């Protein structure tokens, strides 16, 4: 078996304690500069926010079970979907994969002892928690009803809810995101192990790198937009107020200049995860590695020039609309390249359907549907028909939830043995993966139909003829909720009773599998040297490596 670095026996396994047993006090966690512990801190906080956002949307789905307003009032409904959006977008989707798995894996994958600026890394977590606290304060104090987009002039002049606290919370989270991005970029540039050239980087590292560029260059525009909201709402300065010469459409330009690239902040890391998982469980080298890299850079680059497609009906010039429409079609090309390359990787692979692979295949299906319906929305005539309907809601949930959350769970299962040193019960995990896929489609596919038929988003009452779709959707949401809760149970179980994972339970390539599970504080006892490209699953002149992950483990333990 050949691996990315020297053969696996070559790196001495240290007798150092793992990063988990380096200290047990609360202070040793809250004051840590270890990227792996910071990743765990994020994992805990982000999971908390995920369930908070999930509770909000559960009430939303219960309300939509019937066409009448029988559970919550219109005001409460507005606050619930705003809470769901704000928490899920800014405190779950954006930090989830980069800050948990990026933090944990980026240094391990490039053979570095830590990220470039470990204390800045910890500060990012505190900023994130500070931002979340402000947002949760706003929730306790009565909530926000602007939607997660804070459109002016409603947010600055009319809403009498807690816009300021929420905007401040999101601002802090954005600052955290910039700091993380700077850290990851510097780490990738400066701390690669000897021999780890740019085109030997695992695709997950490339994905995190591309994501970080988007974070660093797009987030400041969101920050300034939020400051302008505060200036207008709190200090009374006329910035977007049409009655004093301002232009609310300018707000939308600034907001979407960040928030469209933000979609790529969510999806690029997911693509990185899926690339790692598919190549591992298909036992094949990623098809077209360099194209995969260029496609990610392309997505990150073109992603900055498509924001206008959110504003086709907001009063843009037809020429601007034409250009944004064209560019939005163009940005689909690199995504399609990636889907084709994943498919080509699977072709003639020795596929094994372990839980991470099931989640990754789920990503592939759902992301494709989400991407194809994105083309509908890039086309102006169709977009005018479905703007602000459930069609749009379904589309971005397919990309963000179907795509990114599936990949999040793929990553969680794939690297769980590395992070915790334990194996989870495979049957339960597979069941949860399949349940999630069905629950997801059950929830969101009816929304395409009901949206196309004309049901607008963000309404808590609707004409009775739409009820059947909403009942389907709400029923699906129950299945989806069960599928999200299951991993919480069996993963927690595995922490205590799970089998020891050993260094490399999946027989995967990649530097992170060369060190102990869980890794020691300093990651590698000796700086690794890299002399092969990534994903060397079928080295020349060798027959495919046999793959029996479940029968390894015990003896292989570090």
């Amino acid at each position, binding site marked *: 078996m050949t691996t990315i670095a020297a053969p696996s026996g070559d790196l001495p396994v240290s007798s150092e304690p793992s990063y988990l047993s380096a200290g047990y006090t609360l202070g040793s966690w809250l004051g840590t500069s270890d990227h792996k512990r910071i990743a765990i801190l994020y994992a805990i906080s982000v999971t908390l926010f995920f369930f908070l956002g999930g509770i909000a949307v559960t009430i939303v789905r219960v309300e939509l079970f019937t066409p009448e307003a029988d559970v919550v009032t219109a005001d409460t409904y507005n606050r619930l979907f705003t809470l769901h959006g704000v928490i899920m977008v800014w405190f779950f989707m954006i930090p989830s994969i980069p800050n948990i798995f990026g933090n944990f894996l980026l240094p391990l994958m490039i053979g570095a002892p830590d990220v470039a600026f470990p204390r800045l890394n910890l500060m990012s977590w505190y900023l994130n928690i500070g931002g979340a606290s402000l947002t949760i304060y706003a929730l306790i104090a009565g909530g926000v009803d602007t939607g997660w987009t804070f459109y002016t002039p409603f947010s600055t002049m009319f809403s009498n809810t807690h816009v300021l606290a929420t905007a401040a919370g999101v601002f802090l989270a954005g600052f955290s995101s910039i700091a993380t991005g700077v850290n990851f970029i510097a780490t990738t540039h400066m701390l690669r192990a000897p021999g780890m050239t740019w085109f030997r980087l695992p695709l997950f590292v490339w994905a995190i790198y591309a994501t970080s560029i988007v974070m660093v260059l797009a987030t*400041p525009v969101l920050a300034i937009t939020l400051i302008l909201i505060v200036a*207008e709402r709190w200090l009374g300065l006329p910035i977007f107020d049409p009655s*004093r010469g301002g232009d609310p459409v300018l707000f939308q330009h600034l907001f979407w200049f960040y928030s469209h690239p933000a979609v790529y902040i969510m999806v690029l890391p997911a693509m990185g995860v899926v690339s790692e998982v598919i190549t591992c469980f298909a036992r094949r080298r990623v098809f077209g590695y360099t194209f995969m890299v260029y496609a990610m850079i392309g997505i990150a680059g073109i992603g900055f020039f498509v924001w206008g497609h959110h504003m086709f009906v907001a009063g843009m010039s037809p020429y601007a609309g034409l250009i944004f429409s064209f560019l939005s079609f163009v940005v689909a090309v690199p995504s399609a390249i990636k889907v084709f390359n994943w498919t080509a990787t699977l072709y003639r692979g020795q596929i094994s359907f372990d839980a991470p692979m099931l989640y990754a295949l789920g990503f592939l299906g759902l992301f494709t549907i989400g991407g194809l319906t994105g083309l509908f929305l890039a086309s102006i005539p169709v977009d005018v028909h479905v703007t602000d309907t459930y069609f749009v809601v379904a589309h971005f949930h397919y990309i963000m939830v179907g795509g990114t959350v599936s990949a999040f769970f793929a990553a969680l299962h794939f690297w769980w043995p590395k992070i915790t040193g334990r194996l989870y019960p495979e049957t339960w995990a597979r069941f949860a993966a399949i349940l999630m896929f069905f629950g997801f489609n059950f929830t969101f596919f009816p929304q395409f139909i009901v949206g196309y038929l004309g049901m607008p988003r963000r309404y808590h009452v609707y004409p009775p003829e739409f009820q059947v779709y909403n009942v389907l959707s709400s029923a699906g949401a129950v299945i989806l909720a069960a599928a999200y809760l299951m991993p919480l149970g069996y993963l927690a179980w595995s922490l205590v009773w799970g089998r020891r994972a050993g260094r490399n339970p999946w027989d995967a390539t990649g530097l992170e599998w060369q060190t102990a599970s869980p890794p020691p504080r300093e990651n590698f006892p000796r700086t690794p040297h890299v002399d092969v490209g990534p994903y060397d699953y079928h080295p020349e002149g060798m027959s495919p490596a046999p793959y029996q992950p479940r029968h390894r483990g015990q003896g292989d333990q570090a």
Partner: protein
Amino acid sequence: MTQSPAVLKEPWQDLGRQREGAAFGIWVFLASELLFFGGMILLYTVYRVENPEAFAAAARETDIWYGTVNTAVLLTSSLTMAVAAQGAEQDWRRLVVWCLAATALLGLTFGILKGFEYAEDIRKSLIPGPDFPLQEPAAQLFFALYWTMTGLHAIHLTIGIGLVSRLCLLGALGRIVLRGNPQFEVTALYWHLIDVIWIILYPLIYLPGRAS
């Protein structure tokens, strides 16, 4: 390097690489900052193109003397900062401490002058609102952006003064290694950002409508 509060920090393995890493990191952060101000400058540009007369009339209300003197003050502070950063490389402690002190003082001077200018603006009630003296609504837009842009610049300046003063104090007390320490270059680059942003703000705020 006698007394050594160790310069080399985790995860770096040699000083040169650590310095490169710190400089690289701050450049990436500066790129981010430029987009932060870039968003606002874009907003300013759009509004000014839409309302050229109102913006010219409003800009004529600003006090060009404060603006010009402040530009000179800030440019001088950039010189002293650059000398300090270079001096640290040569381990010239006295020069570094004096230059850092001069930088912080010049920065403070800028802040105080800006304070006087703000006081005068308030006396002339150039704050958007019911008492605003100019007729055209877009003139209020100009001043909304004036207050926000100069205010955000002032926040960056305050942070900069804090960073420079800290280095100055540590240097004077001998509690910091000069040669090879990335902190000097990083602080200098941040200080130059403050300077560069002002160089852009100065013509945007003070010069419209003054040519004719």
